[in-house]
């Protein structure tokens, strides 16, 4: 192995181990603080450097020459990184400045029953971020419960008790209004967010008696890249780890039978 190639391979190992170590350290920070740390400028430098390094490795064809599946998985990882960078707050700010694409990366909107709103605040509802190019209205909200079962979840000793009813689902009926007219109406629930106008709206919180709901607003920018990356990573890994050994086994058996 040439000295340059050797350094590149060691560099790749170093990057992977560095990222693993960062993940372990981040796990001790709790999600909110970890999100802030991993989105900070120094870590942004790490993400961009990793993406550039991965790109350089893919372009040099080293991964393809070794295991084609590794090349596909590497390309997938690059797609995920690029999509995540574009979908980040910084990515949205940059796209706004350079390309004039103005979107919120993420925020929250509070919808009161029957009232129209297009305002978006930060996720802590402390600072207003701006307005969506359309409005949303909460037409209804309900909480459904599982059927309570006698004895279920009761302590091992003592008489069977009726377990408290557990929440089955939260459902909000949301209307999208544009230029004064309703363009869409959807039932938004957990696992079923609303996708409209370049944003995903997910249930985040609700007020007493369903008087209002809070929707998490997430831009869909970069999501196609991320999901394509997921697909490529899976395809590459399954190709390299499962398909190639099975194919090698089949070929060997054919040659043996033929011989």
């Amino acid at each position, binding site marked *: 192995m040439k000295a340059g190639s050797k350094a590149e391979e060691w560099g790749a*190992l170093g990057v992977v181990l560095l990222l*693993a170590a960062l993940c372990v350290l981040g*796990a001790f920070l709790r*999600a909110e603080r970890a999100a802030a740390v991993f989105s900070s400028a120094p870590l942004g430098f790490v993400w961009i450097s990793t993406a550039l390094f991965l790109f350089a490795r893919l372009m040099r064809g080293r991964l393809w020459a070794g295991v084609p599946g590794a090349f596909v998985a590497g390309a997938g990882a690059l797609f995920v990184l690029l999509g995540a960078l574009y979908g980040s707050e910084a990515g949205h700010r940059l796209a706004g400045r350079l390309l004039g694409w103005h979107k919120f990366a993420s925020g929250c909107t509070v919808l009161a029953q029957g009232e129209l709103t297009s305002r978006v605040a930060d996720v802590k509802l402390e600072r207003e971020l701006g307005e969506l190019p359309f409005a949303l209205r909460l037409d209804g909200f309900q909480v459904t419960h599982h059927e309570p079962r006698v004895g279920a979840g009761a302590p091992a000793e003592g008489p069977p008790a009726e377990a408290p009813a557990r929440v089955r689902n939260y459902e909000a009926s949301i209307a999208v209004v544009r230029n004064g007219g309703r363009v869409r109406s959807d039932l938004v629930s957990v696992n079923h967010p609303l996708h409209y106008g370049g944003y995903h709206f997910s249930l985040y919180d609700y007020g007493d008696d369903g008087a209002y709901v809070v929707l*998490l607003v997430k831009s869909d920018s970069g999501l196609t890249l991320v999901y394509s990356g997921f697909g490529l990573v*899976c395809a590459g890994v399954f190709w390299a780890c499962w398909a190639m050994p099975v194919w090698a086994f089949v070929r060997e058996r054919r040659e043996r039978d033929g011989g």
Partner: protein
Amino acid sequence: MSAMVVKADMLGGLIYAAMVAYLAAFVALARKRARAGGTLFALGCVLCLGAILTCWLQAGHPPLQNLFGVFLCLGALAYPLSVFWRRVLRVAGSPADALMGFVLLFPVGFEFQPDPVGLPPALQSPLLVLHVGAYMLAYVVLFKAGLQALTGLVGKGAPAEDGAVGPQEATWRLVRLGFPLLTLGLVLGAVWGKAAWGDYWQWDPKELWSLAMWLVYVAYFQVRRMFGERRPRLSSALVLGGAVVIVITLSWVNLARLFAGKHSYAL
């Protein structure tokens, strides 16, 4: 965490019977009684499946909501996976597999409690079975890879059973079997997180441990790429490290308040 409690019902009976069968299988296999050991190992698996079915019928959903269900299913997977890697991959260590099944069932029998009735809204998704199922398979296979790596590190490297490959080759085969499942579990979790929580990545402690685990195995592949079979101690140490991260992710991260997050319902 609650005190150790004996389950005095049919479910408990099935679990304890499965534990006894696994322990007896371990003793028989360790004493080279392959036929008796295999039968007892299979019996333990059938009893586990009976416990899973009982939980499923009682709760009305697959028992994957908390650590009770997950460890019960992991215990049931020990036998079929052991048969698969012994026959197809020629990986040795059936006694250790039976013992692993017993160890996995121990907290199910004495520590964890069954799923409460009714899944919470976030878990009502077809991805529950796919995401958790992929991870469970990956965990068992990669933990076994960790045991093989440990055998390679402390032993002489000779296969323990006739026709079986050595520990280093066994580790390589098992990691190649488990890593795609680990990748699938991670990706499905991200896709599910987007639908349930609004984003595919939440910086949740369990997500970060899971990504760290995935990266440890990526590092193993990179070491194999760089050195082939020439640095067995380095590659074995990475796979052993991966197994340690599996144990941490599956137990400590779920049980410790230190790592409270979106996955806390797994308690």
